[in-house]
């Protein structure tokens, strides 16, 4: 079968893109290969590990479980939109300060989940934080420092407002 393609319009991190893509290409692959936004990581490609989490219209989703053509007309936000190396997002700074990452592979997905989670639940309990992180696999940290980083980030965001 010839490779079916389609032209789509995506807004990624506030910038409009028009791309002609194979219909079977996942959003994760398009972000990385076509838009060179390699902050979004690809781990399991079956929706388990959470490394590829991005926002679709502001809500966290697995970009490996979304065809890029399905994002046609929608807005996508990736970890590149959170902060810069010079000026980290408060959640990124909290991860840095609390050693909430080691190899960093899982971190972009976790950041996208945590920023959205704290927006909805600004003062979560430790139990709620653990539940919010359940959709992410980290093989380095043992999660303790990630949970501490999220607690710290919550304090920073609340005291900022």
């Amino acid at each position, binding site marked *: *079968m010839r*490779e*079916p393609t*389609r032209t789509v319009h995506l807004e990624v991190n506030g910038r409009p893109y028009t791309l002609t893509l*194979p*219909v*079977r*290409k*996942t959003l994760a*692959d398009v972000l990385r290969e076509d838009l060179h936004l390699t902050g979004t990581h690809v781990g399991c*490609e*079956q*929706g388990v590990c*959470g490394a590829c*989490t991005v926002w*679709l219209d502001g*809500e*966290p*989703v*697995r970009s*490996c*479980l*979304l*065809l890029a*053509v*399905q994002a046609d007309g929608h807005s996508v936000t990736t970890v590149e939109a959170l902060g810069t190396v010079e000026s980290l997002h408060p959640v990124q700074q909290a991860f840095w300060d609390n050693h909430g990452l080691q190899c960093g592979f899982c971190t972009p997905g976790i950041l996208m*989940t945590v920023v959205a*989670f704290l927006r909805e639940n600004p003062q979560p309990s430790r139990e709620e934080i*653990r*539940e*919010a992180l*359940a*959709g992410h696999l980290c093989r380095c940290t043992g999660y303790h420092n990630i949970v501490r980083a999220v607690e710290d980030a919550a304090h920073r965001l609340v005291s900022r407002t």
Partner: protein
Amino acid sequence: MKPPVFQYHDPTSVEEALELLADHAPEAKVLAGGQSLLPLLNLRLARPSRLVDINRLDALDYLVEDGGWLRVGARVRQRRVERDAGVRRFVPLLAEAIRYVGHPQIRNRGTVCGSLAHADPAAELPAVAVALGALMVARNRFGLREIPAEEFFTGPLSSALQPDELLVEARFPRSPTGWGWAFLEVSNRHGDYALCAVAAGVRVEADSVREARLAYAGVGPVPVRLREAELALVQEERLEEALRAVAEEARRGLHPEGDIHASSAFRRHLAAVLTVRAARLAWERARAGGHHA
């Protein structure tokens, strides 16, 4: 690219979607939230030659209370049901169970009808549908039919849906006065499929159970409703005796298969323990006027 090659359609009307299914059944697969289908495509365990994406069917994006029913259209995401205060009042069992479905990132995309149509016997929503006596509304280009939940699930990942049919709506009955409900689950990690989950409902009068519903996920090829155990709850006047009897019936009546996640004996043990806990919680909630703490 991980998924195999397929033709892709994203119709904007239900009629167009049904024509596509009729023309291309059985090679065409419906793509809703994609949280089960995309992993199958990425692993190439499924190789449909055509996908009919229903995400642009705005007409199926409704969540309404209509008479005694909660009507959930095929485009409604699980997260919307989870966040809806009306659902918590109207169908508290559904509201409680939906938090066990995957993770927020999955529920932001996954649909209620998609989970039902996928018919995974370890999934939460099919067990809820069976416990409540929900109706599945299937449509093809010739018309509609309603399928009771207990007839809908026919085997692992198999349902009564025909290849040219779309599950356009799931209808959940409103919880009647006097009933209390509880959903409990044990899984290896929060968000994993259930090793065993129990959906329990009881109607309580003068502290005694008058009617009961019990349905299970993870312990059979389809969601299991256990009528003998329901009867055991009703036959004993005193709660503690009823709970002892229902645990006995759950152990006797369920025959789960073992796998790498849990042995058959462990699953049966879980079922008995969860049955008692869920029935007690449902009883407490029924006495509190059906409200969840």
